[in-house]
């Protein structure tokens, strides 16, 4: 029974990792990474580490996808007022 659960979780982790590599869609890749984190948390329960499973599920299933999706959304946003970035004006002569 232990090895069945172990191999099942490992197969799903491997599938999720391959999906992270293959998917062109950034949000889809973030969701595949969330799948890897969640199933890794289940695998930690099987391996006898419930405290690590707790932390991994909180981080891998909730915190990391939220961070990635916020970052992807922010990247797509166009900045209206460049001075809000707190950087000097975009002068081509300033560039190294």
């Amino acid at each position, binding site marked *: 029974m232990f*090895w069945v659960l*172990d*191999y099942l979780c*490992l197969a799903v*982790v*491997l599938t999720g*990792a*391959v999906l*992270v*590599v293959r998917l062109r869609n*950034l949000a889809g*890749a*973030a969701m595949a*990474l969330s799948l*890897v*984190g969640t199933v*890794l948390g289940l*695998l*930690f329960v099987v*391996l*006898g*580490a*419930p*405290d*690590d499973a707790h*932390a*991994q599920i909180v*981080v*891998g299933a909730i*915190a*990391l996808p939220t*961070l*990635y999706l*916020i*970052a*992807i959304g*922010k*990247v797509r946003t166009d*900045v209206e007022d460049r001075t809000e*970035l707190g*950087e000097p004006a975009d002068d081509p002569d300033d*560039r*190294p």
Partner: protein
Amino acid sequence: MILVNYLVGVVVFALGVAVILTRRNLVKIVMGLSLIESSGYLLLLSAAYRRGSTAPVLLKPPGGQSEQDLARGNVADPVLQNVCLTAIVIGVAVTAVLLVTVVRIAQHYRTLDADRVRDLRG
């Protein structure tokens, strides 16, 4: 065979390195780093597991085992589990910092392509 766990960890590590080396999207590169971190957790906890061991929480002996068994230590290694817990917490902080850096680069250069960020060219 716990060896399969090690092999899957190595394969996930290789996939993360492949993402970092072959993809040019900066967010995708950070995802590759997350994959490498995950393979580290898997390797640590697979090394902590012993045959037939339980979680290292010693309220009472698990079913079918006496306290003499526990005195020999048939629980998973708590030291490696703590190392893994530290790695998880540090990993999410490092990922957050990297993503903030990527967002700033994207706002400054208006691109996510690592090859078009001119200040990073050698």
